[in-house]
């Protein structure tokens, strides 16, 4: 409200060192009923119920409004973040104890926890804000206790600030810190895979090699243990710092608390490093793959030695065998040559015989068939002589047994077909 008026300087009598003076109280107020309607009344009721001053209430409402606006702007549908049922005890939490609250559960992210992405946190926050806004009808003034709303805002602040989120994640009591029992009978992979997965969140280097399975290569497995023995963790223990209690605002007190907290942090950090080392040690000692790799390595070493010896022996044996074989081969070759030679002789003889036989057959053929004269011509001695000459020429022309056989076949066919005279003529013409 801007009022159109001006104020004067103080009167002359006003003493310079004074800034205020009260003279009388207002006339005793009278009690009367106000009407419980409208948003301004609701704001009045809210201030009364939560015993807030005007400015406290204004602050709460404007914060809530800003949050609702921001959440609405982040207008992203879908995703089930923040949908989990709410523990009634959690809803009643005092926002003053926000440091001890489960920051993830407050936003309905107790399943996702450190795995929740920034987006998921935003979405979950938006849902929670819409559900628990102390002033559902913005600016109309709600009366709901806004304690839980404050818890939501604190959780959101914590999880959206990377430094604070790391501090909280470092001490999140819902994520186990256990070192598995080495005597556990359960499956090695089942037991240790989740442990390494969860410990990975603290690694400065990402991605972090994971345990793998029975099929992992030796290289992978060795890389894994190598990484984990050099594990570089950002885990921090500031969240556990003791606040310098109220009234202890002297510098000495502060320094004292700081020192104490620092020492405590260092101690916890050291303990944690030891804990991780213990997990890795144990895993290594229990890892079935490591056993197999050892055995394999042993076996391989043995196998190499044996192989070398065998190879030497084999070399000597092979050399001896080679010599024997060489001699045998030479001998065999000689024999073969001899045989071949003998065989050659025999064949020639046979061939000659066959040729002769063939020629004889043909001569018999010509004699039996009117000397291959056309039918009706009588074979006079001249004609006979001439035909036999022709046959001789033919037989000379046909080289080798094969041709002779062919000639015979053709002529026989001629006889069969009754045209032997022509066939004979043609054959003579062709071959002689």
């Amino acid at each position, binding site marked *: *409200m*801007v*009022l159109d*008026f*001006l*104020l*004067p*300087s*103080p*009167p002359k009598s*006003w003493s310079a060192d*004074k*800034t*205020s*003076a*009260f*003279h*009388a*109280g*207002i*006339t*005793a*107020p*009278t*009690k*009367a*009923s*106000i*009407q*419980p*309607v*409208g*948003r*301004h*009344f*609701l704001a*009045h*009721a809210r*201030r*009364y*119920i939560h015993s807030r001053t*005007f*400015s406290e209430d204004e602050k709460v409402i404007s914060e809530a409004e800003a949050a609702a606006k921001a959440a609405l702007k982040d207008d992203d549908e879908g995703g089930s973040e923040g949908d989990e049922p709410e523990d009634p005890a959690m809803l009643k939490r005092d926002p003053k104890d926000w440091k001890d609250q489960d920051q993830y559960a407050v936003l309905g992210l107790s399943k996702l926890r450190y795995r929740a992405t920034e987006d998921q946190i935003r979405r979950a926050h938006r849902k929670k804000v819409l559900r628990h806004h102390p002033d*559902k*009808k913005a600016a*109309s*003034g*709600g*009366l*709901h206790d806004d304690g839980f709303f404050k818890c939501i805002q604190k959780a959101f602040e914590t999880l959206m600030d990377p430094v604070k989120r790391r501090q909280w994640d470092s001490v999140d009591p819902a994520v186990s810190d256990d070192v598995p029992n080495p005597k556990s009978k359960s499956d090695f992979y089942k037991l240790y895979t989740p442990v390494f997965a969860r410990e990975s969140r603290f690694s400065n280097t990402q991605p972090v090699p994971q345990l793998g399975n029975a099929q992992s290569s030796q290289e992978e497995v060795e890389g894994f243990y190598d990484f984990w023995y050099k594990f570089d963790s950002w885990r921090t223990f500031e969240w556990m710092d003791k606040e310098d209690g109220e009234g202890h605002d002297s510098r000495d007190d502060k320094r004292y608390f700081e020192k104490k907290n620092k020492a405590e942090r260092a101690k916890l950090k050291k303990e944690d490093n030891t804990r991780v080392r213990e997990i890795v040690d144990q895993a290594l000692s229990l890892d079935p793959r490591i056993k197999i790799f050892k055995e394999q390595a042993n076996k391989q070493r043995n196998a190499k030695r044996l192989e070398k010896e065998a190879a030497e022996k084999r070399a000597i044996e092979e050399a001896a065998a080679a010599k024997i074989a060489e001699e045998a081969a030479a001998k065999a070759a000689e024999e073969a040559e001899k045989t071949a030679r003998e065989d050659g002789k025999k064949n020639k003889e046979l061939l000659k015989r066959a040729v002769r036989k063939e020629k004889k057959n043909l001569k018999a053929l010509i004699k039996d068939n009117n000397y291959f004269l056309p039918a009706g011509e009588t074979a006079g001695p001249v004609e006979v002589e001439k035909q036999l000459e022709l046959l001789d020429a033919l037989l000379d022309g046909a080289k080798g047994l094969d041709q002779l056989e062919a000639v015979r076949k053709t002529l026989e066919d001629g006889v069969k077909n009754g045209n032997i005279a022509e066939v004979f003529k043609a054959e003579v013409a062709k071959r002689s």
Partner: protein
Amino acid sequence: METVVIGINFGSTNSSIAVLAPNGHFNVIANADGERMIPSAVGFQGDEEFCGTQALQQAVRNPKNTLEGFRKLIGKKFEEVKVPSDATHPDMVSKDGLPAYKVSFKDQEHIFTVPEVVTKQLKHILEEAETYLGSKVTGAVLAVPTYFTEHQREVLTSSATAAGINVLQIIQEPVAAALAYNFGQNPTKGDAQDKTALILDMGASSFDVTVLSVRSGIYTILETAHDESLGGSSFDDELVKFIAAEFKKKTKLDVTGNKKALLKIKTSAEITKKNLSRTPGAPCSVESVAEGMDFHATINRLRFELMSNKLFAKCNELIEHILEKADLTAGAIDEILLVGGATRMPKFQSKLRDIFPETPMRLDQESDEAIAVGCAAQASLIAGFEKEDIVASTKENITVTPHTVKPIGVVGSKGEFITIVPNHTPLPVKRVFEFGQAEQGQQEVYFALYEGEQDALPEKKEKVEKIDIGSDDEDEDEDEEDYIPVKPTFHQTTLLAEVVLKDLPVAKAGELKIEATLQVDITGKTTITLREKKSGKQVRAESA
């Protein structure tokens, strides 16, 4: 389940329902015939039971089995009610000490107590709402007259609950109307924070007058009055008398003792009266008034106003009476809010100008829908709240609060008194305002907080009693004395506190922007903060 809330005006003559529409406005629900008013009536005929319009339609034929005006009887004992048992009214008996109606229904005598009848009417209202909305109604705010007792409110709540209505809150009729007119609800939007309204509600059966102040958006009723002889129905009666006389002139038949004939005439008279609000003349027809004779005439508005002159005058008397009781001058009224169907009568409005020549009269809301709309507005505000929160907020520890008796203000450089917190302001209160420094180069400002008192009013000349001939001619007003009620002014009386803000930057006169915050808590403890905006120099002082 989705929340669907409504505002219900359960009047003694008419009921109506309002809902928040998607466009942010409040709609009054209309039934299939486009009617927005649901008569508050229940009728029994043969085997059938009727509510609303249907009940009213058979009322003239079946008056003994038609129940009306039962809202007035809510929460009353049988002995407390006057029972007009005659040919045109149903018989009333006592059942468990409660007034009950004896009706014939399904060939038998049935007795229905008032709460049972109220439940029937409210059930009908709920059904109408759900039919219109096409969904279940999850909650409703209802309004009652200011003179309803706590017991009457409780009985109404249980009747409504029995009808299947989840009653979110019961509020007062004039307060609902103020909400509907958005009276003083936007104090930041240049609307003065502190105002006083005169709420005039003329329904059928009563004229209710309320003086309501708003301080930072919070309402306090300063004074109320009501007169059951000044409802719209009384105006109908004037017309009935006139028609009966005319009828007698024409037919020589006297119907003054004939209740049935009078009921018939009244039904027509009311229609004529309503039409006269729109046109200077309106026909009036009553079929077979008596002995088969009809009545037909055209009635002139002026004639109607003349015959009702006394009633209009009485209305103004009641208003002047309430102003006096509230210790307010007419000039202290910032706005007049009209409620109830009968305030539509032009003469009623022009007559108000005798008292309030220039006071803004709000007409931006259908007068007979204001209550339903206000109820719907409140319903939508609290729709999302837990029931126990609503109940807690209406408890006396919150609603009964100290109010300032005298205005508190600052004295400016010209010695003028500027009201910061007026009287009737509920505590605690916080006011933030801005001012400048009087002189160039002035480096200290002196903030003197005083309590004030109203200046004496200029002597009011006694009005000459004049017979009003019932015309609302402009020049007639000219003849009257030039009396315009003055806005009350105040002067400082008691110095409460002094605060000085020092070491201010040098600036031209009035150019510094100094923000003052004044807070008064419920015990009267006062806190003053002054802060120069540019330099951030500030001083804070708190009374012991």
